[in-house]
């Protein structure tokens, strides 16, 4: 088990390496010159040239990448061009807000999506099922920035009960949580429904019923444990997805998180922050996927057995 975990952890290295190459290439091949941006329109060609030298931008790209990589391995992601603060420090400062938001979004998605899917499956082909499925389809189809704007319009302006921006109290978290979680919620609801419909028809569910145990026990112990396996997969994939959504959500609701840090950095051509931020996101997604894999082992003894035998 530990061996498997270690192996998976090592697999993260090439993934991060790949991400670092891609992000480095995109940032450095994009048009625009950070030195020009930093010095403003009044700067002379000479000053710009000097600064480029100072920032190491005159060196060949592969040398620049090598410097970035070796520094990153030491935990040094460079300094922000805008604020001159270490990038890692800025990331870690912003990360708690993003983590809170992403976790709440996932919590919302699971606590609403799972019961919705279960209900739809138990009431298959009734109006309850139709309503749940409609709700899930709508949740999945509407772009989340639009949901954000509409919620804001409704709950901050028409009926002003929630603040539209900031990150000071739990009230600030309600709308961003919904915006961030709604798509994942919809996907989980649909996945739960189809998984339930499959599991309900399994022989072992009939065996469980034949034992005369309560319906509640049949549902929670025999059905849901099996339903959870594909649902966890989807939730894991969408957690990465919703980290992307964080960028939009944080921008809409002016939440000082990692997503907004990156967006602001892109606007300001603050490339060390962009590089560092994206790499950090990639690391988070990798770790979440690893945790999902571990959760499988908890849920499914067959997978646990595979992990044990994996060399």
């Amino acid at each position: 088990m530990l061996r498997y975990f270690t192996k998976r952890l090592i697999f993260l290295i090439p993934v991060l390496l790949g991400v670092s190459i891609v992000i480095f290439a995109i940032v450095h091949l994009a048009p625009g010159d950070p030195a020009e941006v930093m010095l403003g329109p009044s700067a002379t060609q000479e000053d710009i040239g000097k600064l480029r030298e100072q920032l190491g931008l005159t060196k060949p790209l592969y040398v620049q990448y090598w410097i970035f990589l070796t520094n990153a391995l030491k935990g040094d992601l460079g300094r922000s061009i805008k604020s001159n603060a270490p990038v890692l420090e800025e990331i870690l400062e912003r990360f708690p807000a993003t983590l809170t938001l992403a976790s709440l979004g996932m919590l919302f998605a699971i606590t609403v999506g799972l019961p919705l899917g279960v209900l739809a499956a138990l009431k298959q082909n009734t109006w309850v099922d139709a309503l749940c499925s409609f709700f899930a389809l709508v949740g999945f189809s509407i772009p989340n920035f639009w949901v954000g704007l509409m919620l804001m319009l409704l709950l901050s302006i028409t009926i002003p009960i929630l603040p539209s921006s900031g990150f000071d109290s739990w009230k600030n978290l309600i709308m961003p949580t919904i915006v961030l979680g709604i798509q994942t919620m919809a996907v989980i609801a649909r996945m739960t429904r189809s998984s339930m419909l499959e599991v309900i028809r399994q022989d072992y569910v009939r065996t469980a019923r034949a034992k005369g145990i309560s319906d509640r026990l049949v549902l929670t112990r025999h059905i849901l444990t099996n339903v959870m396996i594909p649902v966890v997969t989807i939730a894991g994939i969408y957690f990465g997805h919703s980290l992307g959504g964080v960028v939009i959500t944080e921008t809409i609701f002016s939440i000082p998180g990692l997503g907004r840090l990156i967006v602001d950095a892109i606007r300001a051509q603050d490339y060390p922050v962009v590089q560092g931020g994206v790499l950090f996101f990639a690391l988070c997604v990798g770790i979440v996927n690893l945790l999902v894999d571990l959760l499988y082992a908890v849920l499914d003894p067959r997978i646990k057995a595979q992990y044990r035998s994996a060399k």
Partner: protein
Amino acid sequence: MKDTLLEIKDLNVIYKTYEGTVAAVNGVDFALDRGKTLGLVGESGAGKTTTALSIMGLVPSPPGIIQRGRVTFAGQDLLTLPEKDMKKIRGNRISMIFQDPMTSLNPVLSVGLQISEALVAHQNLSEAEAERKAAEMLEKVQIPGARYREYPHEFSGGMRQRVVIAMALACNPRLIIADEPTTALDVTIQAQVLELMRSLKEEFATAMIMITHDLGVVGEVCDDVAVMYAGRIVEMGSLDQIFGNAMHPYTLGLFRCIPDIEEESSTIHPIEGLMPEPLDLPKGCPFHPRCPQCMEVCRQVVPEACEDNGHRVLCHLFGGGERRA
């Protein structure tokens, strides 16, 4: 004195599907005495499993509907019993062994838990007591009690079926319904499991309905035999009556299907044709299109049962107590 445990009268079950109404069970009657074993024989789709599920109150609904009939178990009519009371009988006084041990155990729960949960539900045992009893049941089916915490995938097919048997016997039921318990197993394992079931049945003094399409299994373990065809019992009697003096052309056909070990030729003699489409049963006797002794009346009129000394047959060849042909 008759000591009837289970009596089924005029059971009719249909399945409503998109293609139409399937008449799965059409007026099944039989009775089973305490401690006896009844073999329910027939091809796939003859209504054997539906009959069993009706007794358990587990006919999937929708699409299944029990149209009419009575299932009396130890004096109680199970079909009119509220679900709450039915739960107290299911797994406790009547339990069921399903066909495929590879799919009838929950893959994510330990076998011990799956045995003990019936004990917790019915015998008011604490978790710890149930665990001890479940381990004891495992030992009874020749699996070390120490494997209590293992999962189904860690057992072979034959062992899994023994786990299922332990599960069914855990609450010491009065009746076990075994739905093709050996069909999915290797031949050598079949004999083992059958022997185990027989000895445990003796030990626990349990009555049993053995559903099978294997007449060899019937010969091994049953006291009485009921042959089903297209939702009806076409012939029923004691083991001797059926094996020694089968009357219905379908039963005779089934016996002819068994290859004779002593015969040189390796030809087998199947019954011509297929089971009728259950959506569209033929008029008259449902067996008439395949019957070698079909008469004009068979095409028009559904035969009535006639009985002689407990040997019942549903065929126009036999009526009024004497053979017509």
